[in-house]
């Protein structure tokens, strides 16, 4: 009788152990799943923040060409998506007055077609390929196509010359 009781007690202990192990395993499993979901949703938040930054930059890059500081306005018959390069060169000279105005790291304007090399300065303009308006840090670039217009001269008479270009701005990843 005693041996039978001892045997059934051992069996009961085994059962309790089994249940305890199962409970521990289940808790561990759900905890791991929870950690995964939490980690994923947190990384999603970071991704969302970056996406908002990217969207902000995209909106800015598509609107920059039509802002008063860049737009062709009446000088070039109110063309849309058009940057007045002569105006930008003048802006480059006093860019420090626009500190914090656009809230972005870099603003660059690149001539795409016809292709030209070299960074634009007062000396080599307009025979250059890139205007660096603002360069603060390295970030992720977003760009948009624009038409770059300036006044050119043929035998001393001015005419409108518009070339294909890109405006590039950078934003910092969170």
């Amino acid at each position: 009788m005693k041996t039978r009781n001892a045997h059934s007690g051992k069996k009961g202990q085994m059962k309790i152990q089994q249940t305890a192990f199962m409970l521990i395993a289940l808790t561990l499993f759900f905890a791991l799943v929870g950690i995964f979901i939490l980690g994923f949703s947190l990384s999603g938040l970071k991704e969302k923040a970056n996406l908002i930054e990217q969207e902000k930059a995209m909106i800015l890059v598509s609107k920059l060409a039509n802002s008063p500081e860049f737009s062709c306005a009446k000088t070039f018959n109110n063309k849309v998506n058009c940057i007045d390069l002569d105006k930008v060169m003048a802006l480059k000279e006093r860019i420090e007055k626009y500190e914090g105005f656009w809230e972005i790291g870099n603003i660059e304007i690149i001539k795409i077609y016809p292709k030209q090399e070299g960074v634009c300065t007062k000396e080599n303009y307009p025979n250059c390929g890139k205007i660096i308006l603002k360069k603060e840090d390295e970030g992720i670039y977003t760009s948009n196509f624009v038409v770059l217009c300036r006044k050119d001269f043929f035998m001393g008479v001015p005419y409108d010359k518009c070339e294909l270009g890109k405006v590039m701005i950078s934003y910092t990843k969170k």
Partner: protein
Amino acid sequence: MKGKMNKKGQEEMVGFALIVIVMAIVLLIFLSFVIKGKSKQEVESYEASSFIQSVLQYTTNCSKDYEMNYQTIQGVLFECIKGEACLDGRDSCEVLKKEIEGMLKSSWKVGNESPIKGYSFRIEFEGEEILSLSEGNETSNYKGSLQSFRKAGKPVEIRFKIFY
């Protein structure tokens, strides 16, 4: 005694199966959450549309009537539709093709290592093809833009697609 043990075994098997089912459901929910998050990809077409707008305003070296009256791509397109040549005798349709081809090649680098697998640029007047330029392969993923306007009351359509 044997029947009681069998019943207990069956109960344990049912319990085990239930645990497996619960785990599978949890895994499925988790997976669907992951997959749903990854499929959020937006296609932006603003680059294609700004490209067409900018191309149309580009100043060519094809002049009309007098030396300094240099035409934009849009102007040259109208000359091409009318069948008129540039002041220096060059075919306006040839100038149009050469300039747009140059702009496409400089702006969109096509290749296997590039994210852009190909592009197609097409101009139609009253449904009739004026110019068609393409490079690379056409894939099922693309960004595109359509620009339409009228010349003498008749429709001109420019379609541009970039394949990824």
